């Protein structure tokens, strides 16, 4: 039989063995040697020790009075000046950060709102460049149509034909670009212009007065000239519009 150790017996006396209590109690019932050892421990532990004499009521206060005199108060911590405590400083910093963010955000928003058209985004800027170039193209085309309507000598016709040949590839590109961007009226006008330019540019012989008249009437170049003037008004730059308004007022 495995006997209990003295340590286990002391633990048993002090109620510290936890879950093993039943095992220890069972063993003590059947093992006289361990029972005797436990009795010795119990006797030793149950010996009376001197009891502390009772203290009078207010004993603690009396002790305090006896030791109070030589004790110096701890230096009082300096009181914080109202607002400058940590939580308030953090709150203040958060408010200032919020104000700064609102100011910066507002100024950015204001700037973006007043930005000219060409600086809003890359796509719009690109469109703006196209419109400027197109305006030049339309201006040249308008001049060509005016010359066509008032064509005279053979030299003038040659110049007209050369100009049409220059304008034709550019016009094709503009038409395709405008068609992709979805502007039907502009696309239709450029398509009409392209056919006129092709007719002039691709004529196998030198153009004479009859040819020009045929083109002018057959392709309704008067109408085309009007359309181009309208388109030019749409594509004109803001400063040009302003200049034109100034001129009108003068």
């Amino acid at each position: 039989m495995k006997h209990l150790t003295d340590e286990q017996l002391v633990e048993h006396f002090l109620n510290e063995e936890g879950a093993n209590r039943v095992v220890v109690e069972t063993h003590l019932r059947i093992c006289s040697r361990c029972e005797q050892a436990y009795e010795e421990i119990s006797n030793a532990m149950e010996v009376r020790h001197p009891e502390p004499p009772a203290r009078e009521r207010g004993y603690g206060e009396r002790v305090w009075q006896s030791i109070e005199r030589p004790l110096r108060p701890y230096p009082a911590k300096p009181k914080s000046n109202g607002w400058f405590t940590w939580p308030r400083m953090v709150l203040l910093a958060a408010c200032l950060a919020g104000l700064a963010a609102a100011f910066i955000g507002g100024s950015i928003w204001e700037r973006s709102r007043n930005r000219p058209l060409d600086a809003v985004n890359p796509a719009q800027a690109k469109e703006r460049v196209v419109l400027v170039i197109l305006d030049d193209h339309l201006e040249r085309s308008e001049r060509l149509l005016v010359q066509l309507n008032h064509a005279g000598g053979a030299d003038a016709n040659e110049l007209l034909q050369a100009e049409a040949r220059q304008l034709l590839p550019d016009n094709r590109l503009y038409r395709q670009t405008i068609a992709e961007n979805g502007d039907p009226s502009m696309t239709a006008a450029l398509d009409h212009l392209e056919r006129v330019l092709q007719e002039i540019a691709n004529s196998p012989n030198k153009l004479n007065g009859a040819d020009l008249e045929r083109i002018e009437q057959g392709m309704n170049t008067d109408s085309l000239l009007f359309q181009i003037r309208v388109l030019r008004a749409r594509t004109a730059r803001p400063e040009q519009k302003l200049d034109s308004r100034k001129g009108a007022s003068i």
Partner: protein
Amino acid sequence: MAKDDHALIRAVLAGEKDAYGVLVARHGESIFRVAFRITESEADAEEIVQETFLRGYRSLGDFDARSDFRTWIYRIAVNCALRVLSKRKTEAVVAIAEEYDDERPGVQLAHGGAGPDRLLLDREIEHRRHAAMEKMTADERLAFVLRHLEGRSTEEIAAALQVTPNNAKQAVFRAVQKMRRSLAPLWVKS
């Protein structure tokens, strides 16, 4: 509503000296009990109580706010009691071997109606008990008193002695063994 110990400590550290008086009033008697259990002398216990609270006041700036004030002040009391025991041993090295001094306070165990045999046995028991207490080391004695007489938990004892709970348990065990060995001859006789 009574302030808790930590609020009182904060008040003391903020300059309110009298708040410490509340702590002394609250814990004074329990410190006296422990001091008496260890020293078995009323005068020594009184002295220990005063010294404990004086030291406690001066060290209050080092008090860890996460700790329990009672355990903390116990530890100071235990250190004061150790000094008293140590001083007593150096002053009376032969005291253990001497005959029991029946003038010591608090050791008269027999009641008025006991016969001469019983009186003699009681005196012998008290002599051996006292001798066993004197044989204990300081830690063993403190652990024994706190666990067996004051009913403190092993964890509290460990905190007061600044040892691990297992070491505190071992200190209690060794103290019990010393007490048992000292008193065993009497049980055989009886």
